[in-house]
């Protein structure tokens, strides 16, 4: 059982992350999630800026990963999150899980994403043709995290 957490400016390679996950022995199921910079409903997105709280971010991500490993049978769990300026269609976040069983893999991956979205100190600012604005938190993300009924990821 092993955890890898990285917060970085550089892009990541899903191919390399996948290979690292299957390199861990005897995993029958590998689930990956990749989040990318999307165009806005109203259009005009020029770039996304990602701010984070260095030190706390890494700690929260490791706690979330450890909680996932406690709840599900997970052999390898990788979280990579980018910071800084990202262009349209660039990769933002990767969560990969290698598990003996597909249900455990899917649930652990969803759990990590739901808690990352609501607990990890990252903030997005959207640069559009009409200016720059911080992204508002989504109630749906809060609801998604609450379905796991874990009150405190820092526990």
């Amino acid at each position, binding site marked *: 059982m092993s955890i890898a957490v990285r917060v970085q400016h550089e892009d990541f390679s899903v191919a390399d992350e996948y290979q690292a996950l299957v390199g861990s022995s005897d995993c029958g199921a590998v689930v990956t999630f990749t*989040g990318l910079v999307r165009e806005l409903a109203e259009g005009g997105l020029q770039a996304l800026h*990602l*701010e*984070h*709280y260095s*030190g*706390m971010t890494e*700690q*929260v991500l490791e706690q979330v990963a450890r909680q996932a490993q406690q709840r599900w049978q997970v052999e390898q769990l990788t979280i990579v*999150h980018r910071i800084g300026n990202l262009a349209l269609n660039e990769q*933002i*976040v990767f969560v990969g899980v290698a598990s003996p069983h597909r249900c455990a893999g899917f649930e652990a991956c969803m759990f990590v*994403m739901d808690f*990352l*979205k*609501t*607990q*990890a*100190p*990252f*903030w*997005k*600012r959207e640069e559009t043709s009409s200016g720059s604005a*911080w*992204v*508002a*938190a*989504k109630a749906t*993300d809060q609801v998604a995290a609450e379905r796991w009924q874990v009150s*405190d990821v*820092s526990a």
Partner: protein
Amino acid sequence: MVKVKFFALLRERLNCNEIDVDLPAGATVNQLREKLALLHPDWTRELYDQELLCAKNYTFVDWSEPLADGDEVALFPPVTGG
């Protein structure tokens, strides 16, 4: 002495990345907030935003959390990563 950091929209609105604050022993995060509002009355509205989150030494805490000399407190809006 406690170090206070601000992030994202809050940091921009206060126009302040971080500030050191002297506090009596055993003061809470909420008392830290009161002191900040006394020192900077124009910050009051932002500091009392209902959605504001606080962390002590990289861990989320309640406003009633007691602080000690050397602690790092962070105040920030709801997170939006991922």
